[in-house]
Structures are given as structure tokens and as C-alpha cells.
């Protein structure tokens, strides 16, 4: 229980901004709604706040329309009831599914990591590597971002800091070849986990997306069942374009989970609601800071709780 509380408070810290945005100040949505009875103004205001949190026009209007229906039917008429209703609506977007990492039955588990430029792939990989190392797994990193200047070096520095092995190629080399070598290394050294870093690419660049598919296919050929996880790194400050990113990357490499980064800013992170509403990919991790320890498994209950705020969060936070 204490562990859970710790997790909640950490996510809350990151989401405090989201909460403020949703409420227009300290105190949580619940405080905004508390003691008020529902009317059209309140519903309109609610919709505006959801949109401002990047939840998306469609999703926001669906949530509010539902609430309006409940209100007209006489099932909801106070702000508190509305909060509960909204919370359950949001939580329903994330069906109970396995949000933990899928590991290989035997042999190395391959985790392919991709995303648009500047989403935070390399830092997120450092976080994943640190998390898995702490769980006692042996991790190898594959530096397949041979395009961006300094990318290999950046991952190398992280690997030294965390104390994991790294397989790298030359700047400008073929990333698929690095992936090939990395798979061989993972097999030869009997590693538990192989995490593959790829160059950032806009999902609209077809040739680069095909290159990504090629990297994926190479791992499949080398290691049975690989890649076991395909993680798309999403920047939480991204707007509705995140949905396109999720769709296009899934088309290319069958994304199995999302890593939502930069939740420690003022970004509302509400975009995960939009993404979840339109794809069925679970969010697996969230990044809430710049050190390798600033990673949390995604827990919808905690996320929604933190997003909406509740009575007990003021003293605890």
C-alpha cells in the first residue's frame, strides 16, 4: 500500500500541472465541480477544459454529451456525481489489459523503440534500461540511430552511466546492420533484454518508415518471436497529431505499447485519452523527469485519479 502511495504521489507531482489545467487552479476538478449543480454553462466550461488539456474535440464532446444525457435523465445533478461519472468514463477508455512488458519465453527479449524526432527516445531507453537492470536483468542496447549526429554517443554515455552493454555502428551506417549485429550479440552473450534505439523520424516519411519495418523484420529473422515489445515514444506536449503518429507507426511496426514522455511540464498529457480513444494500444510507461529513475509504469487508475484530483491529494502531495 505504501508502495502504491509512493507511486501515486510521484505521478501526481508530474500531473499537478494537468490537474491545474483541468481545474484552472489548485484544488482539483472536484473542487471546481463541488457544491455546484449542473447546468449548460458548467457543461460547456467542462468541455472547454477537457479540450485545453489536449483530450481532443471529439473525445471531450463525447464525454460531455454522455454527462449531459445522464443529467437530463436525472441520474446526475451535482458536481460531485459528475466527477465520479467523468472518472469512470475516463478509466473505461483503458480496458484492463496487460500493461507490463511481454518477455520472451526463452532467449533474449527484444524491445524495439521508435518515435518522431525529439520525442525523447534515447532518454526513455535509458529509463527502461535502468528499470530492467534494477530488476536484475542483463540488458544490451543497440544504437541504431546512425543518422542524427551525436545520437550514438548520447546512448553510449547513458550506457556507461547505467552500466549496460551497447552495440553500435558507424555514423551514417545502415541501422538494419546494427540491429543484426545487436541480435547476434544478444544471443551470443545470453542477454535477457535487447533494447533497440532507432533514429527519430516523422511518421509522414515513407522511406524512413519502411526502413523501420526492415529493422523490425531483421530482429524477427534473428530471434524467435522478436520484437517482443514495440514501444512508440510519444511526447506529451504533442497535440492531436499524436493520434496520427500512433496510427502510422502501428502500420509500419505494429506498436505494442506507448511510452509517454515529458509529463513533468505543463503539458496536459490529456492526449493519451485521445490516443486511447482512437487506437487500442496501451500506454505502458510514462516519463516524469530527466534522470533514468524518472519512469513509472502506466496505471490508468492512478493516472485518472491524478488527472482529476481527489479529496486526499492536497495533504499527501
Amino acid at each position, binding site marked *: 500500500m505504501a508502495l502504491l502511495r509512493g507511486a501515486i504521489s510521484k505521478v501526481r507531482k508530474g500531473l499537478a*500541472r494537468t490537474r491545474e489545467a483541468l481545474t484552472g487552479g489548485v484544488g482539483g476538478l472536484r473542487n471546481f465541480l463541488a457544491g455546484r449543480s449542473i447546468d449548460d454553462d458548467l457543461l460547456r466550461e467542462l468541455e*472547454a477544459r477537457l*479540450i*485545453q*488539456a*489536449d483530450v*481532443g*474535440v*471529439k473525445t471531450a464532446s463525447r464525454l460531455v454529451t454522455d454527462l449531459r444525457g445522464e443529467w437530463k435523465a436525472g441520474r446526475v445533478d451535482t458536481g460531485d456525481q459528475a466527477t465520479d461519472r467523468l472518472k469512470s468514463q475516463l478509466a473505461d477508455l483503458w480496458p484492463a489489459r496487460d500493461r507490463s512488458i511481454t518477455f520472451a519465453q526463452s532467449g533474449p527479449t527484444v524491445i524495439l523503440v521508435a518515435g*518522431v*524526432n*525529439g*520525442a*525523447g527516445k534515447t532518454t526513455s531507453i535509458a529509463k527502461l534500461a535502468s528499470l530492467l537492470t534494477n530488476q536484475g536483468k542483463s540488458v544490451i542496447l543497440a544504437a541504431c540511430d546512425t*543518422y*542524427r*549526429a*551525436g*545520437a550514438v*554517443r*548520447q546512448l*553510449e*554515455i*547513458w550506457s556507461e552511466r547505467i552500466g549496460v552493454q551497447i552495440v553500435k555502428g558507424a*555514423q551514417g551506417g545502415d541501422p538494419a546492420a546494427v540491429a543484426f549485429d545487436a541480435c547476434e550479440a544478444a544471443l551470443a552473450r545470453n542477454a535477457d533484454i535487447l533494447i533497440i534505439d532507432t533514429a527519430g523520424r*516523422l*511518421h*509522414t*516519411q*515513407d522511406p524512413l518508415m519502411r526502413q523501420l519495418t526492415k529493422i523490425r523484420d531483421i530482429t524477427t529473422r534473428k530471434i524467435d518471436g522478436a520484437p517482443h515489445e514495440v514501444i512508440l515514444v510519444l*511526447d506529451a*506536449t*504533442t*497535440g*492531436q*497529431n*499524436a493520434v*496520427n503518429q500512433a496510427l502510422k507507426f502501428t502500420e509500419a511496426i505494429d506498436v505494442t505499447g506507448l511510452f509517454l514522455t*515529458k509529463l*513533468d*511540464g*505543463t*503539458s*496536459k498529457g490529456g*492526449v493519451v485519452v485521445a490516443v486511447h480513444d482512437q487506437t487500442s494500444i496501451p500506454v505502458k510507461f510514462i516519463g516524469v523527469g530527466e534522470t533514468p529513475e524518472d519512469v513509472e509504469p502506466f496505471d490508468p487508475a492512478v493516472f485518472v485519479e491524478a488527472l482529476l484530483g481527489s479529496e486526499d491529494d492536497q495533504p499527501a502531495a
Partner: protein
Amino acid sequence: MFERLSDGFSSALKKLSGRGSISESNVREAMEDVRTALLEADVEYATVNEFCETIVERALGQDVTKSIKPGQEMIGIVHQALIDLMQQGAEDHPGVPKITPAPTIVMMCGLQGTGKTTTCGKLAAYLKKRGRSVMIVAADLQRPAAVDQLKTVAEQVNADMPGGSQVHFYGEPDKCAEYGKAVGIAVKVCQNALKAAREKGVDTLIIDTAGRLHINNELMKELSSIKKTIRPHQTLLVVDAMTGQDAVNSARTFHQQLAVDGVILSKFDSDTRGGAALTVKKVTGAPILFVGTGEKLDAMEEFHAERVAGRILGMGDVVSLVEKAQDEVSEEEAERMAEKMAKGELTLEDFLSQMKSLRRMGPMKQLMGMIPGVGSALKDVDIDDKQLDRIEGMVKSMTAEERKDVKVMNQSRRRRVARGAGVNVNEVSKLTKQFDMMSKMTRQMSGMGIKGKLGAMRDMQGAAGGGMGAMGGTQGMPGMATRRSTKTASPKRKFKKRK
């Protein structure tokens, strides 16, 4: 990137443009769609409301409801309002000022991952092309290997980008270790760089700073102190064009702390609906100077509100197209080609080089979208850039003799080329036939008046018929296979027609 946004606008405005007369409630109704389109495009909530109010006010003020063509007039009003929103007065592109005594100091700032380092390189390339010597300084001591990255970028610009002047790099990688333990390290590096820039006599110094969250007070203070100490002449904020509603918060904070002079929108080549462009200008009051349009170091364009507004409304952007063409093809080259064409001496070799320069200008669809009226028509057309790849492959598989004169291509040669290029023999035959026909036409046309030319064009299109296949396309342009995803009659429909 504005395609989706323009779709929303188009449907809203279509509602109005078809009507002979419209009422105030028609206007408001259409604005509701515009509002949704803007919100879905990630334009900030308050900005959207204000924008829509402006439109309605102006529309009613000008009494569009009584106008003969209310739809046209509404488009005009929306167009102008978009320009106002993005530009507000600054008609001339200010660019990067040239200060004497040198160097002009430009400071870059922004959130993590917006593309500051790449943008520094692009700005350096932009200035180099204009004959200005540049020094880039790595003041990002936080992100691992950021100094290495900038150094490589600077070297690439210096070696590969056009222009005669030098691009220097200044960095103190050993200071990274001290960073975070002592205050003012980044400031010190900037001071040293300024000294070096003066010694070298460069005329512009670009400072790359570490990405930071605008709520991180310590790092924001660092930026302020760099600004206070170094006194840059221009402070540029790099904003990711895909940013959502939060663009308001970060832009506002950066502006409050640093008094931003200009904005560079990065990742403008994505399919984001581009709300950030509309928001940032309003929040900061600073103009958007450049947009990043690709991964290459020369992929940065000047931002022109008028053109972008036109693109949003599907009005095309001929000016940008011509500029792109001028960047790629020199005038002499174009004249030489025209002459060759007139004499009917155009070879496949020339054709290939022309195709290459065309492709350097960007994806076909993006280029075609800049032609007025074509943008919306192209929405469902899938232009296959791969077709061009195949043609390139075929031409490259030919011998010099074959490229000079396609007539020598007999069946055996065609088979060989098909094997070499990994295509079907039919495709090679098609290419040679079409090219032969094209050179005949151009020869004929060069000797004709305008009327004859038009006639010949018609003949060509007629002759082409379905057989033109790879070259057919809507424009009758070689290598442009087009596929109408929605309009191609399905076999079923064709069957029905026949009945």
C-alpha cells in the same frame, strides 16, 4: 501539413459559397465548423474563439449577407484574418539582422526535443548561402553528446552546404562534467565563444542552448543570465509544429523571461494541422521567421503568412513553387534544356537529370499541392513517387547509346533493362514508347504557333489514351502515375456501367 486544416475550412466555406444569399445565422453556423476545425488543429482554445468572433464581426460589418457572392467574400475575410493572426503587420521578412560591429548574436531557446540543434545548423546554412560567416556555440552542456552533435552539424554545414563563407564551431566539451555542479558554466562558455568570434571576425554567432521545461526555474534563470551577459541581438524560440494546447504556456513563459524576437517552427513537414503556427504569433507577438521542412540541413524556408494562409484555404502557393524551382535549376540550365527540347534532341539522360532536380524539390504531391486549385483536387489522388524510382532504375540500367536514342531498344535490350531495374518488360516498353512519342511531339510543337501546339497536345492526349499508363496521369506528365482512391470505378461499378 495544413491539408487537414484546410479540409475543415473548405467544408465550412463550401456551405456558404454555394448560396445566393446568406443570413447571419448561416455565417454563425459555418463558423461552428471552422471553430471545430481549428480546435482539432490544436489552435489554442481562447485564440480560436477570438478568431471566430473576429470573422463574424467582419463578415457582418461588411454585410456579406447582401453581397452578390457571399461565399467568395467570406473566403476573403477568413484569408485576411488568418494573415492577420499569423503576421500582424510585419510584411517584410526581417531575416537575421546584420549588426556592426560584428558579430550579430543570435540565441536559440526552446523545450527539449523541439529541434534546436538541427535548427542551429539550418540557420547557419541559410546564412552561409547568403555569404555570411557564422560561428555556432554549444551552450547545451546538459544533454549527453549535445556538444558532439552540434560540432558534427557545424562541420556538415561547412563542408556540404552551398556558399563561400566559413562556418565555425565553438565548444568546450570538458565543461560538461562541471555542469550542474557550479553555476554560470554555460554563460562562461558563451563569453569565451564571443571572444573567439571577435578574434575570427565572423559576422554571426549562433548560441545553441539546452532544452528546458519552461517551469524549470533554475534553467530558465540560466537562459536569462546568458541573455543579460551576452546581450544577443535576436532571441529565437524554436517551437515544434506538432505541439498541442500547451504551446500557449511554453511560448508565453519563454517570452516573459527572454523577450523572444522571433519564432522558428520545426517539423513543419509532418501532417500536423499546424495550430501552433496560428497560436504562437498571437501569444508572443513575435513573428514566425522560418519553418523547418525536413531532416536535411537546407530544409528550412522563410515563413510567409500570406502564402501559408493561402495554403490553408487551398488557394495554392505558386510563389513558393517558383522559389523552389529557382533554387534547384539555374537559368542557363533551363535555357539549354528548352533549346534541346525544341530541336528534339532531348535524351533520356537529360530527362533523368530533370527528374532528379524536380524530385529534390520535394515529394510530388507536396509540389502539386502548391499549384492553385490543385490542392483540394489532389486530396484523394495518390501520386506514386515510387513510379519515379522505377523510371530512374530503368534509365540507369541502359547503356549510354540507349539513353541517347531509345529507338535502338529492341526486345532483347528491353529484357536486359527490365532485369537490371527489377521491373516488368512491359514497363520498359512503355517508357521507351512514351519517350519516343514525347520527343516527337516536342519537335513538332516547337515549330508551331500556339494554336497548333494546343492541337498537338490534344492529339498527344488522345493517342496516349489508356496506353499511356505510367505516363498517363492527370497532367500527361512522364512518370506521374496517379491513382484516384475514391473515384476509380471499381470493377463492380464498371460492370454496371456496361450493363
